[in-house]
């Protein structure tokens, strides 16, 4: 990785033996009352954080990370109580403080940056006023200048206008910066960050993390960073504590933990994480196979052959396509009968609105997975929705050519598509929670498309499908609410398979899942695709995920594709600057450095034409700005 690193190197411990640790958590146990039962949430957790040091807290959802983090500000969720242990911040037992002292602690000695700044800022108050409040509530002068200074401090442009805005008028990254400004307003000794970047896209995430890093150094704060993203934690924290079921199972310095995970759970966690940046040694001979083998512990070895074959095929096709490197024409990949061919596709949500998909051309070959990546709002979902016929295309060509001579026009909305076409194109949704009707059993959900497209829906066939997606037949009787997120996603996949599709559209199907579950679902998808010879449009904003599953990658921004090519080539480069920014900003676990991505603003301008980098790798021309 060749980014300019601006940070001081998080791995170097700044030890200040002179002062006592800012935070001392000792044998903390918390439980909450559910009915008459006491449910333990945190059990015997203990750690210390010294000034200037950062502790990362990782673990799966519900493991008690937030609960622990918030005790540092003497905050407990309604209904919870401390069962044992103590929390000391700057020498005081926080739960023994009186009202006044507790207010001084909150925002004064210790400050919190919450996960979703969009919800953490009061919607009815201008951000300037909220910042001023943060100052004034701790007896600091809250003058306009001070507020502006704070805004500048978190590197927001044009502070004068920013302070007059309401939270919803800011982007997620800007909101998070304001939240950080509010937290550091009173120069606290301790900064608690509860998933500060989970809601942000990678590029913004890097910028925000960098800001936090710099502020921490500048103010010599102790930091507790809560995240489920090992990449984020490893790049920020000096030490990492891994939590599971309310217990810290492993607590080690960052580098050590990655080098030599001790606890079984930690190892599992590390193994299931997809990575985008490969080690320098791999770079020269990297291939899709290598990328996949990173998940080797989980993906079935039996499918390795399939994988390789598909990969080779894709590369081969890529080479073929390089024959036609027309400068003006959009790149075209895969001459042999693509399943889907789009040309100059424009999709718009309403008259007067800008096109959400703006002149996109692409092809998806048979048995091929095309991944589309890009930041939020780049039009990925729109493309998927249009392909599924849920929103009509405004202009352009969009053709489907299936196996048994099935041809269809994908610009047509669902209502006007033939049943065969509808059957052949199946959607899997991002959110497993909302993609299943909570009132219908799993069996009914799968039986419905069976009935609709095959005319019959025997319980046997349903059971078969369930087994195919790695569930047992008895799941048919369950309601979605009785399933875990990963299981629901599997049901979603089974439902798509029930129709007997040729093309699967998978829109961010793993975003809502834990890393470990995500690995399982991705593996399932890959396996099914290979076994059934499906084509797939795979949408994600997570480059690491894409690297694991895609044959080819298309990079989208602003409704346009700026780069398209075989996965391995795209990840290696040369790249479009936008792709590069994305790649750079992606944090792999174990990286103890933060990539410098600047302020995340585009430094390029679109230009006409494409550059062919060979092997089916095309990059949109651009000009530096």
């Amino acid at each position, binding site marked *: 990785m060749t980014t300019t690193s601006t940070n001081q190197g998080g791995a170097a411990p700044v030890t200040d033996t002179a002062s006592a640790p800012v935070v001392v958590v000792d044998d903390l146990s918390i439980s909450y009352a559910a009915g008459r039962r006491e449910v333990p949430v945190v059990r015997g957790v203990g750690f210390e954080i010294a000034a200037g040091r950062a502790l990362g807290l990782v673990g799966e959802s519900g493991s008690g990370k937030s609960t622990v983090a*918030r005790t540092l*500000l003497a*905050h407990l969720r*309604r209904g919870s109580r401390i069962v044992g242990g103590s929390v000391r911040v700057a020498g005081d037992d926080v739960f023994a403080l009186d009202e006044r002292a507790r*207010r*001084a*602690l*909150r*925002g*004064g000695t210790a*400050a*919190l940056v*919450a996960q*979703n700044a*969009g*919800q*953490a*800022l*009061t*919607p*009815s*108050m201008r951000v300037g006023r909220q910042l001023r*409040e*943060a100052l004034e*509530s*701790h007896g600091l002068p809250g003058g306009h200048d001070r507020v502006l200074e704070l805004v500048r401090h978190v590197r927001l442009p044009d502070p004068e206008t920013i302070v007059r805005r*309401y939270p*919803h*008028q*800011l*982007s*997620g990254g*800007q*909101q998070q910066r304001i*939240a950080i400004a*509010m937290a550091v307003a*009173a120069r606290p000794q301790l900064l608690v960050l509860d998933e500060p970047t989970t*809601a*942000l*896209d990678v590029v913004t995430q890097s910028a925000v993390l960098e800001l936090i890093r710099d502020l921490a150094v500048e103010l010599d704060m102790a930091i507790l960073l809560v995240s489920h993203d090992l990449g984020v934690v490893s790049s920020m924290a000096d030490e990492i504590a891994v939590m599971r079921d309310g217990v810290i199972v492993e607590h080690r310095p960052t580098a050590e933990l990655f080098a030599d995970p001790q606890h079984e759970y930690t190892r599992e966690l590390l193994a299931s994480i997809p990575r985008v940046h490969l080690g320098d040694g791999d770079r020269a001979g990297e291939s899709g196979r290598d990328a996949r083998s990173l998940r080797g512990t989980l993906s079935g070895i039996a499918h390795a052959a399939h994988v390789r074959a598909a990969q080779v095929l894709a590369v081969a096709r890529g080479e073929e396509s390089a024959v036609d490197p027309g400068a003006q024409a959009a790149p075209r990949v895969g001459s042999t009968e693509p399943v889907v061919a789009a040309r100059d596709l424009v999709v718009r949500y309403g008259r007067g609105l800008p096109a959400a998909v703006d002149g996109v051309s692409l092809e998806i070959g048979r048995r091929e997975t095309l991944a589309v990546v890009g930041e*939020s*709002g780049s039009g990925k979902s729109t493309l998927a929705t249009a392909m599924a016929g849920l929103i009509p295309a405004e202009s352009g060509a969009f053709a489907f050519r299936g196996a048994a001579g099935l041809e269809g026009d994908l610009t047509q909305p669902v209502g006007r598509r033939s049943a065969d076409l509808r059957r052949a194109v199946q959607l899997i949704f991002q*959110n497993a929670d909302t993609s299943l009707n909570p009132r219908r059993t799993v069996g009914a959900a799968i039986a419905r498309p069976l009935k609709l497209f095959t005319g019959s829906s025997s319980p046997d066939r349903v059971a078969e499908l369930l087994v195919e997606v790695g569930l047992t037949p008895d799941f048919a009787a369950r309601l979605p609410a009785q399933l875990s997120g990963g299981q629901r996603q599997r049901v979603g996949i089974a439902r798509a398979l029930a129709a007997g599709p040729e093309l699967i559209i998978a829109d961010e199907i793993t975003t809502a899942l834990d890393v470990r579950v995500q690995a399982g679902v991705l593996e399932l998808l890959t396996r099914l695709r290979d076994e059934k010879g499906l084509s797939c449009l795979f949408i994600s904003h997570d480059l690491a995920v894409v690297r694991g599953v895609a044959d080819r990658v298309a990079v989208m921004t602003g409704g346009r594709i700026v780069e398209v090519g075989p996965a391995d080539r795209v990840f290696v480069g040369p790249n479009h600057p936008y792709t590069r920014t994305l790649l750079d900003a992606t944090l792999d676990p174990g990286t103890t450095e933060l990539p410098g991505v600047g302020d995340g603003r585009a430094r390029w301008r679109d230009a006409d034409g494409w550059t062919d980098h060979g092997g089916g790798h095309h990059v949109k021309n651009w000009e530096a700005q």
Partner: protein
Amino acid sequence: MSPTDTPTGSAVEADLTSRGGAPTTPRPSRPGSPALSTLLLVLRRVGTALLTVLLASFLVFFAVQALPGDVAQQLLGQDATPEAVAALRDTLGLDQNVWARYGEWLLGASHGDFGVSLVSGAPVGPDLLIAFRNSMLIAVPAMLVGVTISLTLGVVAGVRRGRPSDHAISLISLIVMSVPEFMVATILVLLFAVAIPIFPAVVLRGDSATVVELLPSVWLPAIVLTLAMAAYIVRTARSSTIDVMASEFVTTAELKGLSTRQVVWRHAVPSALLPTLNVVALNVAWLLGGVVVVENVFNYPGMGKLMLESVFNRDLPTIQAIAVVSALVYVVCNLAADLIALALDPRLRTRRKARS
């Protein structure tokens, strides 16, 4: 869009509820010109409001015309001579095309001319105006006092959730809500007019009473209305306060080191009021239609009493006029609620209508 009872399908329907937990990354709304877009919003809202009134008048007109039997015959009774019926049909214009009649009526109504009462023979407008004024005399104080007190109580109960004060407020509001107004009114009369004669039991002077003459009589009806209305608002305000108090931004405000008072009144209340607004609006609108019972018990010469009388007497022009005035009040209240919502929630002002 959450299951709100938001009255007129409008811009305000844009998801207020995203405070619950928006799954998507917040996207900055496009800057544009906020003033202009707000103005457009307001204009559109006013437009739908007018349309609603128009439609309501239309529905009432046709419903009333569709009454079974001949209106003229109904009015004159069984023994009426055919000539008399024919004459009345003529004066009522019943032989004309119904559309023409509606058009004519609408034209008149837009000038405030609601026709002539079939019973007294006097123009409907002035009488209605007086009744309306009288009703406002009890409705406005009830509204001001009721809304203020009940919002405060609701917020207090919501903030002190689970404590004795909350239990007391919730219990009392539940009981008040469950006892019909006619009973509340009866008990108040027995207590404060008969047993301890502080207030008059009924209004003696009818429609001719001046405001000053009515003043001693407005208190008991106003109290009944206040109680009836307050209970609902208290409960709504309470539950929306509880929701908001559980929201992330209130926790953030707390963890900023603000005092509870600051957290509640500066951060929580504006958002907590939002869902309450529509309830307040509906209640205020209800005040006019729902005063029937109260006015009946107190012999109060307001819209409710007029409404009851004109229904008794099948005084169609008066019924129509009352319906239109009530519809106006209803849309005005809801309009006001929407505008206040706009003022309270900056998100509504700048967000373009989000539609799935």
